[in-house]
């Protein structure tokens, strides 16, 4: 992609955000201005109120502490999901017996929403921090495993046969055909998993239940706590913070993936 195309993408992105903000600003106040309420939007604080709260929050150490806390939980959960999910997926993919034994259990556990795990997570782990990390781990773990298992099913059989013909044994074929073949699926799984850890962090941080109104229980806790305190603009700030964090981290995973797979950029 050349510099011009990239600038166009950035310009459109900014334009899109600005247009949405203008729509939101007008929509949320139309009821007051001319008495015609826009559904849904008139219940939301206008952007300028949110920005006001944001400006207030930015000055508070607690807000940044929430970012740091959530990020830490997400990253640990994600790291464990990669560290356990990738080898597990590769075992499912390569050893048929293992797949037969394990896959039904995996498929049963997968649809259980992370929120439903919260009580058990509290019982399982000695500290609150570990319980929260465990729930974010679950959020990332399943999409990572599932993507790799699906990706391996799409492997080009001919590449495996050719590698045998070129003198590679089982181990060589695994390392030099199967692994690179599943790399795209691993990256997709990681990007999806990363997004879900941020979705799950709200549920996870319900566990934390502590903190104060400045919200140093994490971004998810900030949203929940602001809801209980009836602070609407602050809820929106928390939501947007979560969205931005998820977007940034998924983009980073994808960028890292593109770096690992230079052949995908070449065309």
């Amino acid at each position, binding site marked *: 992609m050349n510099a011009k195309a990239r600038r166009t993408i950035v310009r459109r992105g900014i334009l899109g955000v600005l247009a949405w903000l203008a729509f939101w600003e007008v929509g949320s106040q139309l009821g007051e201005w001319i008495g015609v309420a826009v559904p849904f939007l008139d219940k939301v604080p206008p952007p300028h109120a949110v920005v006001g709260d944001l400006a207030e929050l930015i000055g508070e150490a607690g807000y940044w502490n929430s970012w740091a806390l959530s990020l830490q939980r997400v990253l640990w959960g994600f790291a464990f999901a990669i560290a356990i999910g990738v080898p597990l997926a590769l075992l499912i993919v390569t050893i048929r017996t293992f797949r037969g034994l394990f896959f039904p259990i995996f498929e049963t556990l997968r649809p259980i929403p992370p929120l439903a795990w919260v009580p058990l997570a509290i019982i399982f782990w000695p500290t609150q921090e570990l319980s929260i990390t465990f729930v974010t781990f679950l959020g990332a773990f399943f999409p990572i495993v599932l993507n790799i298992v699906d990706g391996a099913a799409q492997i*080009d*059989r*001919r*590449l*495996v*046969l*050719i*590698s*045998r*013909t*070129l*003198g*590679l*044994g089982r181990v*060589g074929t695994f390392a*030099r*055909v199967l692994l*690179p073949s599943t*790399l795209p699926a691993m990256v997709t799984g990681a990007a999806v998993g990363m997004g879900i850890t941020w979705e799950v962090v709200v549920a996870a941080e319900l566990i934390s239940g502590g903190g104060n109104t400045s919200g140093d229980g994490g971004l998810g806790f900030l949203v929940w706590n602001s809801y209980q305190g009836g602070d609407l603009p602050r809820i929106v700030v928390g939501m947007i913070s979560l969205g931005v964090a998820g977007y940034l981290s998924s983009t980073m995973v994808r960028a890292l993936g593109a770096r690992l*797979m*230079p*052949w995908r950029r*070449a*065309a």
Partner: protein
Amino acid sequence: MTARGETRVERVSVRLGEGPSEKLVVRDCSFVLPAGAVTAMIGPSGCGKSTIGAVLAGFERASSGRVRLDGREVSGPSPERQILFQETALMPWLTTLENVVFAPGARRRDKRRRERAQKLLERVGLRAFADRYPSQLSGGMQRRAELARALLNDPALLILDEPFRGLDAMTRELMQEYTAELLGERRQTTLLVTTDIDEALLLADRVLVMSNRPTRVREQLEVDLPRPRTHEAVLTDERCQELKRHVIELLTDEVMRSFAAQAAAPADDVSRGNGAAPLTTTTRSQ
């Protein structure tokens, strides 16, 4: 260099599938691929030609009979037998050069091997594309890179399984003439599996015409046409027309028999009756 790669297929039968879906694909099939010659195997599509290719490559095991290459019995895949499939099988994550030198462990970093790979790439006209990825090559270029990869391993036997099928007509003709030249100059023992009569007559010293499934050799023909052969020459040569007519007659006869067999079969058999068996779905690695 004395030609090697004499391959004797002795009373080979192959059954594919398990239990009720088991099918006899090759029945008591015998033939010889002479060393240093190109032998084309032509037959109705789905007859089991590719399965024979897979047995020679070591991907499939013969249910009975055996295959001997220069006197030694063949079992399992080995670098001495290289294969080109119907579609490209280059590793998408490796550059052209890395694909060509692909081998276990230290051999791919062997300096002399890399130099030979560079030379082969030059020979197939891909020197400038050594550092490109397969997705950046055209279909014909991909085929040539695969030829270079196969030849770098000095195979005793080269198996070409309908290797030009996916190419456009122009590229196919060029690749056929080009491959004929390359195989001829190396006296490479080759089995060319094909459904294209012109291709067989252009490249081969001998043609094996195969029967329907379960397949076996129906007839062997010597292609006594002068070399080098070009498409123009082959298509206009009288002797060639004669050979071609004969092959078409044999194949038409086989196809008619296949239809007759299907018409006589119970209805549920027709549906799975003559389904083509592409290598990718029927092979299991051992």
